[in-house]
């Protein structure tokens, strides 16, 4: 399964960003092959509105199965949930640590948006 982490970094030692739609990038790790891929989110985060929607659409089209981020707003959550993607709210720890915790079932998926819309804009 591919797991996406919102971040402003590019590798496993960088921290998970609390923002989703306004995160700079997503680091995607394939839990089977352990391959790492970096997806730029610059264009989405600069949208005047609907950044979360665009970011969610990007990740859905990337075929990820789970998203690890600080906070996820209602519109993005709706899209991810409808596409069967689990959302794991997570503090600002390294991507490597967050990846380990997901694999060991130490992070729990949320069943609803964790914040109201507009939370992490810009």
């Amino acid at each position, binding site marked *: 399964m591919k797991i996406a982490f919102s971040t402003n970094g590019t590798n496993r030692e960088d921290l998970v960003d609390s923002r989703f739609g306004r995160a700079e990038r997503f680091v995607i790790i394939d839990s089977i092959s352990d391959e790492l891929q970096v997806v730029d989110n610059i264009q989405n985060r600069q949208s*005047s*509105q609907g950044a979360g929607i665009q970011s969610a659409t990007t990740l859905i089209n990337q075929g990820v199965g789970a998203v690890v981020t600080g906070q996820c707003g209602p519109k993005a959550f709706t899209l991810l949930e409808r596409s069967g993607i689990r959302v794991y709210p997570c503090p600002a720890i390294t991507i490597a640590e967050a990846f380990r915790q997901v694999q060991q079932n130490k992070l729990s998926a949320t069943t609803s948006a964790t*914040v*109201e*819309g*507009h939370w992490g*804009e810009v």
Partner: protein
Amino acid sequence: MKELIVISGKGGTGKTSLTACLATLAEQCVIADCDVDAANLHLLLSPRVHHRTPFVSGEMAVIDETRCNQCGHCQQLCRFEGISPTPPYTILPSGCEGCRVCAHFCPQQAISMVPRQCGEWYRSVSSAGPMIHARINVGAENSGKLVSLFRQQARQLAEEQQSPWLLVDGPPGLGCPVIASVTGADAVLIVTEPTLAGQHDMVRIIDLLEHFSMTGYICINRWDINPEMTRTIRQIAEQRGVSCVGLIPFDRQVVSAQLKARPVIDQPDSIAAMAIKDLWDNVHAILSTP
């Protein structure tokens, strides 16, 4: 860090004057002026600008006159009064919402979209602490994006300075900028006045806060203009679970302080200043309780 947003719905209730007083009372606070359409906080807190950054928001259409053959197709398609009704067809910046329809469907490909310059925002040091504020271009508008940008910058600043308080002078009305200003804040202080309009707008804001499950408090400015109405407003708010944290009397010293470009809290003998001090103590106590 506690983030307090001051809003009023209706204009002229004294929101900005009150915010300036609270900012002066709060020790080590960071201030954000999100009322960018009528940004007045700087008139009371005399900020010195340290950094200025231009900002763009959205796009606007432009017509290349050398390509345009005046067919008028764009005018028929535009739903925003963004193109002059008669030839020669020009873009009306006041109407254009940047939807891209005219640019995409122009048979001559004579229309393109350009980023819309909206103004500048500033990082400053004011008499009450670090401050984020802006000057927007004429006709440019406040937006949820702008408000969110300011709050984000102000939060960052508050974290850097380890400030315990972030005070936000919120935008007017109930639209997108207000929604962007209240979501995620620790508390919202509604400034109202004992008038029918004040009551009407306060109820609409309480509806909005309920919609977003947010905690609100009210204070009533110039309460003694109509004590009976003050009582009514207070009752309505309290029935909705919104408590009243302050009553500020009418005081001519508010205007005389403004003419000196200072918040009225600087005139400790003024009755408004005393009431605002009590108000701040109440807010402080409520928000400091875990």
